């Protein structure tokens, strides 16, 4: 049954007894046309678009834990299309357009809020770089507005504008940027895929990939062997382990990224604010918590929790940017396992094994990519052809250096992103 305002009122009047689980809990079948390994945002979106755009409905999503337990439920929910380099630029632009139609398409409230993103700058050189980025965004058909100090002050009066080290010179404003409710995105795609016949199988860990004569035949799981003609690996931070089941070594290192949330407060931050010089960004959730984060801890890790030095660094940056935050109390912090590539850009490609595809390398920025990645990966799995907006996300770009997308301009080396 669909959701509507009328239904919310009706259920309210009758004690909320009419709501049913929104996806089934099926036993795995012996065989599917396609299997998606990993029930995070990207895996679920891939299954959804395989069913919706390509009519492939005999498919299963295999998730080792529960839906929403991975990075899709751990991120700080920033959605934007402010990339600079060809490859990334068209991909994130396409993804943002899918975001803008997502709630109607899924009939699900993901609380997508285009509250605007402001990237701050603190020097003439940085301003030039942001002017260039803004022009690239406009050329791509997206929106960008350059703000001077007073322009930023109008939007964000609570910042420390005259900080000695980082005085605020202005900001690049991206009005279509914003946030969304991360779990709802996973749930919405899971529901949409399930409604189209996709089996979503939780507590089902893939432990092996069956390959015969260079062709994929299926997978081994903790719930038995399952055959499939096509298999897609979409496991984010666990990409290294799952790819190893197919004899591959990926250009990926898994790192920990932390995030923080305060107690619920009255509205103060109406935008997403990014303070690049402090490796700090912040927004306020609809519940009132200030949600903020910083950079990687910078050592490979699968612990899904970080260490104290990065926590201290993030708090320092918060105090530098907006001293008022010192009054707020941090409620909790957590970490996620990030699939970092050497150039900081993702991979959506075939593998050397026929019928086996991979979607990975989203680093710390794959939440905004959920619809675009699912759409483009489904296209690749269904048709065998790269989808135009994601056509540059090739696995072999590292070997020959052709087509590297180093958005930060720091070099295509593992420890630099």
């Amino acid at each position: 049954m669909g959701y509507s305002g009328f239904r919310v009122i009706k259920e309210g009047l009758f004690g909320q007894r009419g709501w049913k689980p929104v996806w089934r809990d099926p036993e795995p079948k012996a065989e599917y046309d396609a299997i998606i390994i990993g029930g995070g945002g990207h895996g679920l979106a891939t299954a959804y678009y395989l069913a919706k755009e390509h009519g492939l409905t005999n498919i299963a999503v295999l998730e080792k834990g529960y839906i929403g337990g991975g990075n899709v439920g751990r991120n700080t929910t920033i959605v934007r299309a402010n990339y600079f380099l060809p490859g990334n630029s068209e991909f994130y632009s396409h993804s943002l357009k899918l975001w803008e139609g997502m709630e109607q398409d899924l009939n699900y409230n993901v609380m997508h809020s285009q509250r605007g993103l402001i990237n701050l700058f603190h020097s003439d050189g940085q301003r030039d770089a942001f002017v260039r980025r803004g022009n690239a965004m406009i050329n791509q058909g997206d929106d960008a507005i350059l703000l001077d100090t007073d322009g930023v002050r109008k939007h964000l009066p609570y910042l420390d504008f005259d900080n000695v080290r980082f005085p605020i010179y202005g900001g690049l404003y991206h009005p279509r940027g914003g946030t969304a409710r991360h779990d709802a995105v996973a749930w919405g795609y899971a529901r949409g895929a399930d409604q189209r016949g996709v089996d979503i199988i939780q507590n089902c860990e893939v432990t092996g990939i069956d390959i015969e004569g260079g062709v994929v035949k299926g997978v081994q799981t903790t719930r038995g062997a399952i055959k499939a003609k096509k298999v897609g690996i979409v496991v984010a931070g666990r990409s290294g382990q799952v790819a190893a089941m197919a004899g591959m070594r990926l250009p990926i290192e898994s790192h920990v990224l932390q995030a923080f949330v305060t107690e619920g407060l009255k509205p103060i931050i109406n935008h997403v604010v990014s303070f690049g010089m402090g490796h700090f960004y912040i927004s306020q959730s609809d519940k009132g918590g200030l949600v903020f984060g910083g950079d990687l801890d910078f050592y490979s890790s699968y612990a899904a929790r970080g260490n104290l030095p990065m926590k201290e660094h993030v708090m320092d940056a918060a105090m530098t940017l907006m001293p008022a935050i010192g009054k707020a109390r941090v409620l909790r912090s957590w970490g996620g396992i990030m699939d970092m590539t050497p150039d900081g850009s993702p991979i959506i490609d075939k593998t050397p094994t026929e019928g086996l595809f991979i979607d990975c390398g989203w680093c710390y920025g794959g939440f905004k990519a959920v619809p675009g990645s699912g759409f483009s990966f489904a296209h690749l799995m269904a048709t065998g052809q790269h989808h135009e907006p994601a056509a540059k996300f090739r696995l072999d770009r590292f070997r020959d250096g052709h087509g590297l997308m180093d958005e930060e301009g720091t070099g295509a080396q593992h420890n630099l992103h």
Partner: protein
Amino acid sequence: MRLTCPNCGERDRREFYYYGDAIALRRPAPDAVPEAWDDYLHNRKNPAGDTTDLWFHEAGCGAWLVVDRNTVTHAVHGATLAEKAKR
């Protein structure tokens, strides 16, 4: 997280710069095939468990260390000087 530098003793993680997998010590021959260079520069075992990686004691003695540690528990098992580890 604290690392024990063979020269300086146990120190705060903040004194160290992280480089990555100790595969960096096994540089291919200059005329090796491109695949060997790709493996050396990019492709990683990326283990969930015990790993060996390189850390630079930037705010200490300035030595490169080969550190054995666990990526799941963050336990640090030990460190040796890279100049000695290098074959």
